[in-house]
């Protein structure tokens, strides 16, 4: 894209890929001086400058918003930080009556439910992404990707509603007895089958993050160059070998990024989990037992927090959740970017 014919020298966006050559800028300057008399010399610069700064202000506002979030969380949690320090994250005692607060059960619940969700969601979403990009007839492709993305448009609270009345009974009647019989010896699947508990939370979370992981994986797989596929096929590979060696291996970093992005969503997910996890601040060995996550303790107790220390402890949990998701998301973005070469991952509704 050549920049030579630009009449306005202060024009700078979007820049051409290789930057303007020196003489280009000078030529533009010359045109400006010649063109001005035609516009009777009365064109004011003020609205232009004002508009430019107004737009910059909007940009600054986005950064300020993040600053505001950090400020609110840090200020809100100082009281609890001074009272407990690092012990806050290592204690498992959550007792509002005696003003003793430890976040360990919630951290445990968040981690276990999210990891469980990943274990279920990753193979499924990879399968869907591979099917849509590599195997599916073109006519079916649009419909399938639209339908999987429809899953992302369902509000969290509706997932929760469905989970309470459909998923939990199914898990209680069929899944948990089956798991207890076959895998009960691992102690991971033991105890009374309530239905409500860590397992239900993991399953509903998995259903919710599948669209995210599969749509980003799909994006990453599409940018793998066609000649990679052709090269592997030319060596006599079957279709699956082509997918494994030509496609998946090349898109590794991007796929890991997609998975971490899904993890980020799972960590912060609130409503559906709150509705099925059982909300008991305990660290249990069995996945059948009820648990509690960082997000759900906020959802349940924030409006009822009476003491200042109680509120502050809850805000500190919010701060911890915020920091973890930011690190996880930043990591994921970088990994997806490394494959799609700087094109930002499409934001997911």
């Amino acid at each position, binding site marked *: 894209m050549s920049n030579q014919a*630009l009449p306005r020298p202060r024009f*700078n966006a979007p820049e051409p890929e290789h930057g303007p050559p020196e003489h280009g800028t000078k030529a533009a300057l010359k045109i400006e001086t010649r063109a001005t008399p035609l516009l009777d010399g009365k064109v004011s610069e003020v609205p232009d400058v004002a508009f430019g700064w107004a737009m910059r202000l909007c940009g600054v506002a*986005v950064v300020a918003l993040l600053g505001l979030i950090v400020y609110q969380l840090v200020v809100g949690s100082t009281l609890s930080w001074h009272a407990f320090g690092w012990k806050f994250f290592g204690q498992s005692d959550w007792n509002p009556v005696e003003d003793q607060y430890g976040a360990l059960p919630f951290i445990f619940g968040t981690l276990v439910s999210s990891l469980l969700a990943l274990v279920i969601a990753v193979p499924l979403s990879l399968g869907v992404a591979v099917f849509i990009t590599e*195997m599916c007839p073109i006519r079916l492709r649009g419909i399938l990707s639209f339908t999987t993305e429809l899953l992302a448009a369902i509000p969290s609270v*509706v997932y929760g509603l469905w989970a309470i009345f459909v998923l939990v009974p199914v898990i209680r009647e069929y899944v948990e007895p089956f798991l207890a019989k076959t895998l009960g010896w691992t102690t991971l699947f033991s105890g009374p089958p309530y239905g409500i508990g860590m397992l239900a939370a993991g399953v509903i979370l998995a259903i919710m993050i599948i669209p995210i992981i599969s749509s980003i994986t799909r994006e990453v797989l599409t940018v793998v160059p066609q000649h990679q596929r052709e090269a592997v096929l030319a060596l006599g590979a079957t279709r699956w070998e082509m997918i494994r060696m030509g496609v998946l291996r090349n898109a590794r970093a991007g796929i890991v990024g997609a998975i971490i992005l899904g993890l980020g969503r799972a960590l*912060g997910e609130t*409503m559906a989990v709150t509705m099925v996890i059982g909300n008991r601040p305990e660290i249990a060995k069995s996945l059948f037992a009820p648990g509690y996550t960082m*997000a759900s303790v906020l959802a349940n107790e924030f409006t009822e927090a009476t003491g200042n220390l109680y509120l502050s402890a809850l805000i500190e949990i919010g701060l911890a959740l915020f920091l973890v*998701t930011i690190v996880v998301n930043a990591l994921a973005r970088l990994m997806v970017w490394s494959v799609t070469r700087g094109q930002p991952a499409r934001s997911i509704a």
Partner: protein
Amino acid sequence: MPATNSNPAAVLIPEVSVPPISLRRRVTDHVMTAVSVLTVALVLLPLFAIFAYLVYKGIGSINLAFLTQTPKPVGEPGGGMANAIVGSMVILGIASLLGVPLGIGAGIFLSEYGRNRYGDIVRFVSDVLNGVPSIVIGIVAYGLVVMRQKHFSALAGGVALAIMMIPTIARTTEQMLLLVPQAIREAAYGLGVSRWRTTLSITLRTATSGVITGVMLAFARVAGETAPLLFTAFGNQFWNWKTDQPTAALSLQIFSYAISPFDEWHRQAWAGALVLIILIVGAVAAVRIAVRHGTLAGA
């Protein structure tokens, strides 16, 4: 096995012989194809189950009373979610008023003024904001609005949802503006049109339908949000028209009814969920149609 003659490459290089593909490899290939078809089926199953249940359970409970009345006390049958439907619209209206201009402004900044280091910072920050859990946004809105006003309000809910809309709108607006060819901007400059006028009347106008799609994406995303409203809008069993008072919202009502022990309320929760989804899809579709046929149509 010698290469078959129907393959043109085989005619050129007749000496090549392709070793047969072993049974194990062929079986693996078929098994993996079957596995990925199976995963698609497994993923689509809950989707259909959710929609089927929603329609099956919801449609019987939607009636005139549901759409026009406020909730009845426990034990009394009937009543509806009219106040929650209106409350949701009020909160979403406030959120759009605050979030859409700021988001589009930030998008214009990114595409027209932000092709530099500062733009990269804003771009990264908005991606980060996009990943902040909605419940954390709720805490922030609580600190910003509820603590100052001393009570829950529709305004606080609107602020929370606006914060969630801004990064999505900014990034999609940026992408849509970047799709507008550089030549169109240059043509405007060539005619002596000032830069702000070019951006608003030429660039933004050309990208209108894309920008609006982005706005609707953000709108649909926050329309069903519950977590940030729990301690901002709070919910209300009665009509409320003041933006500085606790306000009912459809998603909040669904949540509190779903976890209640009453069958009548469960029924209403399903109806509410169906209405919520219809409203979201309806709003998105209405704006799409307006963009395509109405006065908003891009140049």
